[in-house]
């Protein structure tokens, strides 16, 4: 068949290590300070995105209002005043050329960027897992067919197709949804390969054979026996896909097929900010920083979740740290 090669999960193992229930997973997750911090950061980002209108009202600004008097028209529209025009009215300064408020645009941008990133990643995970499982569990023909379809997807130059897709779809189709679908449906090849490879090796394990002997359907086996074990590698891979998707959205904006103006997104902000490196560094830095923080948070959280799903991680915890979590330990008298 086609290749079984994919990004192996960090700390992948031949036979999955013993794990335990959701409660223990949560406990282990809570024991990781870094994961908690990452979750907090992400929670904050989501809150900021959701609360954008409130915060905008608090600042007293509108994301699309022009402020012609705040920019130096003769000098390419660079904001007056230092640091990109930061002032009491405009907490993070204003956009060059238009004078639109950057703080509010950044917040509203989070809505789109997080939606697109999470949505597209979700689509990739769902399609990738479905196709990967289908290929690994199906018969020779299904496997060959799905693997070839996966190959076609992987071989597609993504951006060009995204451009074509956006051009083909009617202009009044909601753009964020289109971006989610375009990115999600074009870039699931890696996920499918990962899932297929992992499933093939899981399939060799006896507990899957045992499940077959119960006379359950393939779907039942996949759901009960395979999906839980696939969670760890899928989460790790998804944490890498997520920033890639945000960057993809930015690249699509750069090529003119991103969100529709005047809607802001971090990607759109980055793509218009490109040339402002020197004249107004803050303009570039702000969205770039948001992107980086999001990436970091998702990576750290993904690591945390993956580790929490891996019970071997428990014995890796240092003794000193484990004592602190002892109070929460309730389930099962593990040795």
């Amino acid at each position, binding site marked *: 068949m086609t290749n079984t090669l994919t990004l192996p999960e960090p700390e992948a193992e031949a036979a999955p290590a013993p794990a335990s229930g959701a409660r223990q997973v949560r406990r282990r997750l809570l024991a990781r300070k870094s994961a908690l911090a990452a979750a907090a950061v992400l929670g904050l980002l989501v809150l900021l995105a959701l609360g954008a209108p409130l915060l905008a009202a608090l600042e007293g600004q509108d994301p699309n209002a*022009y402020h*012609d008097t705040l*920019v130096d*028209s003769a000098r390419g529209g660079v904001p007056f005043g230092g640091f990109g025009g930061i002032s009491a009215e405009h907490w993070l300064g204003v956009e060059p*050329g238009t004078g639109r408020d950057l703080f509010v645009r950044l917040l509203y941008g989070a809505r789109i960027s997080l939606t697109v990133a999470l949505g597209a990643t979700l689509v990739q995970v769902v399609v990738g897992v479905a196709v990967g499982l289908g290929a690994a569990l199906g018969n020779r023909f299904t496997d060959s067919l799905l693997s070839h379809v996966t190959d076609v997807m992987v071989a597609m130059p993504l951006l060009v197709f995204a451009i074509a897709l956006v*051009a083909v779809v009617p202009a009044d189709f909601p753009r964020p949804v289109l971006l989610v679908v375009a990115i999600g449906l074009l870039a699931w090849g890696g996920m499918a390969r990962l899932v297929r490879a992992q499933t093939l090796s899981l399939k060799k394990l006896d507990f899957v054979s045992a499940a077959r002997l119960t006379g359950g359907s393939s779907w039942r086996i996949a759901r009960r026996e395979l999906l839980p074990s696939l969670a760890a590698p899928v989460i790790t891979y998804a944490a890498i896909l997520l920033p890639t998707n945000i960057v993809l959205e930015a690249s699509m904006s750069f090529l003119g097929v991103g969100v*529709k*103006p005047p809607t802001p997104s971090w990607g759109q902000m980055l793509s218009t900010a490109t040339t402002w490196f020197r004249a107004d560094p803050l303009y570039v830095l702000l969205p770039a920083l948001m992107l980086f923080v999001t990436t970091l948070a998702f990576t750290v959280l993904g690591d945390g979740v993956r580790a929490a799903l891996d019970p071997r991680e428990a014995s890796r915890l240092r003794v000193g740290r484990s004592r602190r979590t002892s109070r929460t330990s309730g389930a099962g008298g593990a040795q």
Partner: protein
Amino acid sequence: GPKQGGDAQGGGGAPKKGGTLTVLNRAPQKQFDPARLYTSGGGNIPSLVYRTLTTRHRANGAEGTKVVPDLATSTGTPSDDAKVWTYKLKDGLKYEDGSPITAADIKYGVERSFAPELSGGAPYLRDWLIGGDTYQGPYKEKKGLDSIETPDAKTIVFHLKKSEGDFPYFATSTQFAPVPKAKDTGAKYAEHPVSSGPYKLVKNTGDGEQMLLERNPGWSEETDKERHAYPDRIEVKSGLSSAVINQRLSTGSGADAAAVTTDTNLGPAELAQVTGDKKLADRVGTGHFGQTDYLAFNPKAKPFDNPKVREAISYAVNRTSVVNAAGGSSLAEPATTFLPDQKSFGFTPYDHFPAGATGNPAKAKELLKEAGYGDGLEITLTHSTAQNFETSPEVATAVQAALKEAGIKVKLEGLEDNDYDEKIHSVDKQPDLFLAHWGGDWPSGGPFLAPIFDGRQIVKDGANFNTARLDDPKVNDEIDAINKITDHDAAAARWGALDKSIGQQALTVPLFHPVYKRLYGKDVKNVVISNWTGVLDISQVAVK
């Protein structure tokens, strides 16, 4: 007001021959066949290789909008109400291989531009020459076009269907470059064109991305008053991003010190940076090209069939934010006239719907109420998604923000550039309101106004530019009348008057005229930027 434009001269000292000039460009010179180049695009690198019957006067500013003889001894002798144009070739004209340039070669050059294999180019030859509308080029119709006569090797006569006082301007385009029939390789000619200009093409790789031009021994300075050809070699590197081009020019290390660009402006961000740096600011040339960026209506569609709505929008527009979105006041000048503010176009100032610097939403609301839209109005504005600072999302959002003040809710429809281009120029699919821009094929009112407002130029299934579908016999007659005038200044005045009177109908909302800021390398001398193209003229540049 009067333009001082193109004042840059580059580094001090008299220009000398020698050295290598580097051209850093964005777009590769994909087309190099003289038949396929479009007039206004055909003036840069191709103009170093192809000489034409007439040419642009290579001078700064308004002086550069003049047309002057090139291969011909004059800009052309009109007869029969400017329906017949006769040219005589200069003596001693040679190709790169030393063979003489003949009038038959120029005729052949014009004819081959009709071949579908060599598509591209401007529509004027087809529209103007007798028999041009059906002629299929010399490959299919060997006998050639009867409306071009070459009574002897040095004389060429063009017979037109109608009077065209602007013919000398049109004769600057590369279709009027000589092509020796024996050397013509059809679609492959561009790979090895036979040079009549000061340079010949030595290398062309990557589909026009990297080119090397060297001196053409067949060219003699005596026959060419316009091109200087100071550098020994010209190296073209394209496919670069504009940010990189400007950064390279400002850093100017190595070969970049002797570099220019012919297709890249300073963007707003770069301008902000350059103006803060005296040394860099000295290396910026300013150019004007006759162009207007405007809002185009379809006055046949609701609600724009109501002149009051169009007027309301004219009043509501905030030109300051539009100009800012287009890069700020150094890169765009607010426009209230359709004609560019240059004398050669016949610029006549007017402002029929004074919106002031930042728009007059009160007046707009009033007009809307009168038109029956007192409760507000919802419209769609179509624009391109290309980031060109002209028809781009930024400008559209600026319009959107201004109209909001007047109670007009604007929905934006951004189209991918091809889609946009096809839609706005299609009679059937044309959006009702969209951002458009129009530049003159040469600095005259004719090519500026006629395609947009001449009712006979409404093209049903080709590229239509009369997007207002104006078909007013009075306008049409006036256009015909002015076309008969061969005195440019006299014609200009009438074009100006025509523009002013059409303006009253509010068929368009002129927004701004772009201004070009061209950065060049620190070793570059003799910088000439004419108002014909607004482009830095590489035939004038010296690097020593």
